[in-house]
Every structure is written in structure tokens, then in C-alpha cells.
């Protein structure tokens, strides 16, 4: 069965998130508890004249899946509802057709860390 990951509204005031870290690539086999990505959410939509209200989150998968398509890259800004990745729950899941459901994930607020895209000397 194919399932999808779309950017959920982690915070009711957010409109988008930036991809800060990626822990898997297309073809990766993932099990429950594996890290998928870190995101930053800037409630000022990335342009604040003042102290920016930025929070960081980690997305963790909660089921055994294979990452079929990764549609995001480091530094990408994703809108709420945007398709970020497609997964298959079985080895021989077809790589075409509409996903049957959303990927089961955990999301948690994390501290900024040196491995994030925003910490790099880009």
C-alpha cells in the first residue's frame, strides 16, 4: 500500500516550513522510530522585522515503510498540505497510483542543532 507524507499544520498559525535536515533518501527502508526530517516553522513567514518566532520540529516515522519518492530537499520551503514524500508499506508496492492514506508519524519540538541547513555556511 502506498502512503504519503504531506506537511501538516504543526502549529495553527503556520503557513509553511523549511526542510532543515533529511535522514533518509529514496529507497531507504525505515522502521518505527526512525528519523525522517527536521523542519523549521517561522510564524513570521520568514521575514520578521523583530525577533523571529521560529520553532524546530523532528518528523519520525511510526511504521515500517520504504521511502519511494522524496520530493523535498534541504532548504526547501513547503506549504502546509504540500506533498513531501511517498512511501510503500510492502517491498513490492507499486510506484504509481494515488496513495491510500497518510504516513503515520510523530512530530516533536526539538532544539536547533549544528546539522541543520540553517546552521550551515550557505
Amino acid at each position, binding site marked *: 500500500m502506498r502512503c504519503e507524507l504531506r506537511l501538516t499544520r504543526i*502549529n495553527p498559525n503556520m503557513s509553511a516550513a523549511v526542510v532543515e535536515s533529511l535522514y533518509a533518501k529514496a529507497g531507504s527502508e525505515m522502521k518505527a522510530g526512525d*528519523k525522517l526530517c527536521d523542519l523549521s516553522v517561522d510564524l513570521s513567514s520568514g521575514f520578521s522585522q523583530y525577533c523571529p518566532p*521560529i*520553532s524546530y520540529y523532528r518528523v519520525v516515522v*511510526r511504521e515500517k515503510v520504504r521511502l519511494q519518492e522524496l520530493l523535498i530537499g534541504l532548504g526547501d520551503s513547503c506549504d502546509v498540505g504540500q506533498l513531501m514524500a511517498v512511501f510503500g508499506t510492502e517491498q513490492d508496492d507499486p510506484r504509481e497510483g494515488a496513495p491510500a492514506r497518510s504516513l503515520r508519524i510523530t512530530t*516533536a*519540538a*526539538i*532544539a*536547533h542543532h549544528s546539522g541543520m541547513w540553517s546552521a550551515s555556511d550557505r
Partner: protein
Amino acid sequence: MTSLALSCGPLEAEGYVVRRSGMHWLHDDGYVCRPNEVIGFCNISLEQASGRRSGKFPLAGEMELHVAFAPRIGGRLRISDGNSPGGYLNALGLHVWNPNDVFGYLEEAQRDDDAAQANPNPGELRLLMIAGRRMSELADTNIGILPGWHSRSRAWWCDQPGSDLSTLLCLGLCDAAGVVRGNETPFVEAFEATPSPAHFVYVPDHPMVPCAPILLEQLLRSPAQNEALAADLSAGLSGGSVVPNADDWMFAGALLSSLQNSPMREKYDVLTPAGLRQLGPADTILLSMAAEVRSVLRHKKLGYSVQMLRHRQTAAGPAIRSWLSSAFEPVKRTVDDVQRDYRKLIDAVAAQTGARVVILNRMSTSGFEDITSYAAFDAPLGDTLENISAKEMNLMLHDLAKDCDFSIVDVDAIAADLGGSEHLPDGIHHSSAMQAMVRAEISNILNTADQPKSN
């Protein structure tokens, strides 16, 4: 219908003539105002009285100096003509202060409330003095209340002669700044909620984050150490491989100003209805635990600490960034380190100035989380997960309070009561309702504390 004349009341500075600009009204004619709500303001300047020899002017370092006006009782505002000529005449101190000047009237005045009963002249406006010390004298923007860039701003009710003014110095991040300085007209929200005599001082969190080791070093640094770090900064900028640009020099000036001054030691000139007074160092210092970053930069040669919030670092130019990366090394801070730093700071403040320390703790829960396993989060979890970090820090603070004399404002509990997602969506920026509750909590702490020390 009776109306009540609104006069500006006494304001004196012995040896000086107090002058004021035309009136800036913050509300229109017909506005229904509340007791203690600021309705307008004037700029203020001091002029030496005839026969007085030139000398140091009081408040000379505070080039923004306003007096804001608030009615003692509520009612419908009626503005008198002729007090607000506009243009530069509303900025320059062209009028000698006259306590009998009438700016307007209150209709439907609530004369039967306690404030009206308590004051023999209920139409005499309350005076809220507001002063700003510019980061640079170049930062002049003569529009509105406290325009421009200030290294320190402050306000105090100055309509009660002989009353003790207790100074609250805010050295926090946005969670504390919003409570003290507010987000509408500077200080106005806080003083409407604090009708008793009070003096609030705000020092911004830039360029350096006001964490305990940095504040402690500011407090204890000697003049010789100040000279040494100024010389080192100068050599680092001019002798490095990167040519400094305008952003570098601006940042360096602000950084040096921050390094060489301790707000906790500063004394304050205040204007009152009975004349000029000088207040000693702050009676209470308000800190944010959110400022206790988990890493500071320590100078490799001179050993002092700096740290800036990430969004402040982007204001630095390439030469400052190069200097920070070559002349400093990062030093990690554990929760125990933060506790040790707090203890040193609180003890040093008590010994040096006698001030009481009040600390805002952190919100430690998030309604957006659904963690079912910690496997995906690197140990120690306090370094990875924000809610665990906040809980560890809050616990540390409560442990410290057992044998160290300071007060905690339980932001965590207040946010949980109000609803964190609505009133504290990112854990640091409060809604006005949240600010009002934190302000009330601070007020309770101050009211139950000992009387302020004599100045």
C-alpha cells in the same frame, strides 16, 4: 452634563526650567478613556535657569525624554484647541511647563470612583515620564514615543511627590520585554496596570544575549579589563584578513557598549513633581531563563564571554563573524553549569547592589507533540527535545530556589492555564492576555517582597 478640566500638574527640576513641546494626542476627541490610560504626550527638555553656571545636565544621556498624560478617572475626552500645533512645534520644547495648562476636558467623568475620591484635584493629569538613551546619538527619529534605537529605555509615574520609586530592571528576552516595555506604545500597558509608584527600565537583548555569565562579567569587569577588550576588539577588526564593512563597525560599537556597561550598576536621574532626584541601582532585576543558551563563546586570550541570539548574528558583517570564529571558542553549558552561573550572579548582585532577582521560567509543554517513543531523539534528551530541556531547566530553577534568594515567575503554569498554543505559540512571544497575567504575577512578587532599599 458636568465636565472636568484636564491640567498638566506640577513638574520641577531645581536650577532648570522644564520646557515642553506641543501635545501629541494618541486618541481622538470623543474617545472614552480609562483611568491611568495614556491619552497623549509631549517632548520635554531642560533649560538652565538664569544665573546658574553651566555644568552637567541631568538626564543628558537620554535624548528621548517625554511626558505622557493619563487621566486619573475615566470619561469622554474633549480636546481643547490650540495645544497641538503639529510639525516641529510638536517636537521642540517651545513652551515653559505650566502646571495650570489645560489640554482638554473629561465629560461623563466617573467622579464617584476611588481615584476621584482620593485626589483633591481629580482633573490633574497623571504624568508618566519616558526616557530613552540612544545606542548612538545619530539614532534620532523625532516622531512618536521612544523612536529610534536605544541601549536603555525607562519610564516612571512622577506625580506623587515624596513617594518611593522602586526600580525594576528588565534584562530579559521577548518574554520579559513584552511584559515591561509592551508591544503598543512603550511602557504604557505596563503602567496602566501599575498605578502605584514604579520605575521600569528596559535594556534590550542585543547585541548580547543577557545570560547569567555575561551579566556577571559585566557586573564585575574592571576599567582595565574594559580597556583591554576594547583594544583587542579594535585590533581584531582592523588587523584581520577581512576588511570591515559598515555593518561590522555598527555591530562592534553596539557590542563594545554592551560589554563595557553593566545595567545592574547604573543609577538614574528622575524628574518628579518636587524636583530632580537620583535613584540608586535597580531594586529588582527581571531575567528570562530562555536567555540561558546552552553554549557561549569564550575569548581565547582574555577569557570573557559573548553570545548573541542567532537572528542577531546576521546583523554582524563579515569581519565580526571572522573575528568571532577565530578569537573565541564555543563552551557548552550543562543544566548544572547554568545553575552554577545563576548562583554566582544572584550572590554577586546581592553583594554589589542588594537587588532582588526575579526569573521567568519556560513553557515546558507543547500541544503539537505526539511522541510515542524516544528512540528517534539523541541522548541526552534535554539537548534534543525542547520540552524536556525546558522541564530540566525549570526543575533546576526550583532546586536553586531552595537555598538561593530569588523569585520565580511560573510562566509554565500561566501558559498551561491560559492555553499555550493560543497565547504562547512559539514558547517565547506572549499574547497581551499572557503578558497581563505575567505582569500581575511580577507585581504580586514585588508587593510581597521587602520594602525597597533606600536610595
